């Protein structure tokens, strides 16, 4: 065996720690499942087709994990007028885990001024959740999806 060959692996030894960093980094990213870095956490959003603007008002910060909650949802037209007597639906889930909310939230009261009480909000684990608000009125049906990043 030529001597030069036995040197070659040694020269590449510096790759070992580099590889460890790479593997460790990938493994860490996979295990912690962080939400996308550019996640828009705004609680006020225009609906997809621009028919409405919805605002989620959890009423408590940070949003607790494991506790059933009542939220307020405010809906306006694009020019800021409160949307009264609309039909609202709330669904949600965890995109990275493929499951929905552990509850079925419902609008239980129209509070006036385009504000609605939603009961039955609950999150059973920390992490990235999405909440989709569907709004229906004479102007049509449209929806917006909000992101939440809940702590431990």
């Amino acid at each position: 065996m030529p001597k030069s060959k036995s040197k070659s692996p040694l020269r590449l030894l510096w790759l070992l720690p580099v590889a460890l960093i790479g593997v460790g980094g990938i493994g860490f990213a996979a295990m912690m499942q962080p939400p996308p870095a550019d996640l828009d956490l705004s609680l006020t959003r225009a609906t997809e087709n621009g028919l409405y603007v919805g605002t989620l008002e959890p009423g408590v910060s940070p949003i607790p994990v494991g506790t059933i909650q009542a939220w307020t949802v405010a809906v306006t037209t694009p020019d800021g007028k409160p949307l009264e007597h609309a039909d609202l639906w709330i669904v949600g889930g965890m995109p990275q885990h493929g499951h929905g909310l552990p509850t079925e939230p419902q609008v239980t009261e129209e509070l006036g001024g385009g504000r609605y009480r939603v009961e039955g909000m609950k999150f059973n684990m920390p992490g990235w959740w999405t909440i989709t608000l569907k709004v229906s009125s004479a102007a049509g049906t449209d929806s917006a999806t909000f992101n939440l990043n809940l702590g431990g």
Partner: protein
Amino acid sequence: MRLPLFVAAGVLAAAVAGWSWFDPGKPAWSPAEAKLIASLSLSTLPKLPPDPSNAVGDDPAAAALGRALFFDTRLSGNGKVACASCHVPDRQFQDGTPLGTGMGQTNRRTMPIAGTAYSPWLFWDGRRDSQWAQALGPLESLVEHGADRMQIARLMAANYATEYEAVFGPLPEITALPEHATPLGTEAAKAAWTSLAERQRDDVNRVFANVGKAIAAFERTIEPRPTRFDAYADALVAGRDTAGLLTAVEVEGLRVFVGKGECTKCHNGPLFTDQHFHNTGVPAVAGLPEDRGRIVATAQVLADPFNCLGAYSDAGPAGCAELRYMDREGEDLIRAYKPPSLRGVAERAPYMHSGQIATLAAVLRHYNAAPAAPGGHSELRPMAMSEAELAALEAFLRTLSETPRMETSHDRPDRSHLALELRSITEIATGLSVPSFRRAAGFAD
């Protein structure tokens, strides 16, 4: 030229690895990991909130009555079965067998009690929505206590009238009614129930519900106690030295638990359970009837006359949000079961809802392999954890048992407290009062 590069890369790798290779006693946790670990500590468990459906839930006299009833074998069809027969106090209030055995054999594993006062759903499938409603189920199950509500109401009148009336007010007049009657159970008992007037059925139901409420008042005093893990998590949160609180292997197991193992997807919060329902591909048991889990239980809890919205609940609708906004249907509820708390899990073999898996190591292998579910779809996916990681995970789970804490300069165990804890078990068995049990167990009176 290459040597500095090698050294620099090596230093960087060590930094990424969190220095744990060099000093396993001081593992570096990322902020996210540290936050998750802190969220699991018993210190973050809030004070037990009142149960709005049980007005006597925090009444010591109700708890004393409930404790007596919990150990009373007369609440059975053969005079031999008490709650404590399966919920054995010195075994975390469970029985260590795959299937509970009373007058016959059940289809499910007996569940532990500590911390269940925090749970919106009781039983593996959540078919009851309070501790008091739960307690009523086994009393009338023909394979558990095999009693009936009329028998129990009469027992209260004959043997517990003073204690009952001190908590709940006057007992109804039921002495002229049949010996046995219930809408469930044997044909004779059902016929007797049908023969009663509506008012009489309501009277009996109310006494029966109150028996459940007294038992629940006792069960609310059964709370989890701190473990070695909690000492570690609390030291971490406080920025104290964690050396010696957990071994290096246990720390590595914790790292897998909050990281690669994704265990906190279901086992999160200070009780290590999300209180929801999950299909984890647990095998069916040959010889037992088909078990569909949560998907069947949602209709049962809605139909239960003793639920939060029922006539015997002390809550108004506002106190029943969990029931009103319950997730009622969907494929994810098929063969879905509640994750039990992992506190004390090492001493609670066998595992799963019908005791399907004999050892903790085998449970971890199950999660690692993620077999297909016999019905519905398993939420698991294969994990590719190494044998070393599985062993570390098991070592970590063993730190969740209520054992004397390891002695350190920061956190010296109180031996007198330990002696009292041990004595409390004896007191339960010998029937001393609930206040003394609470004091002995370290609860504030």
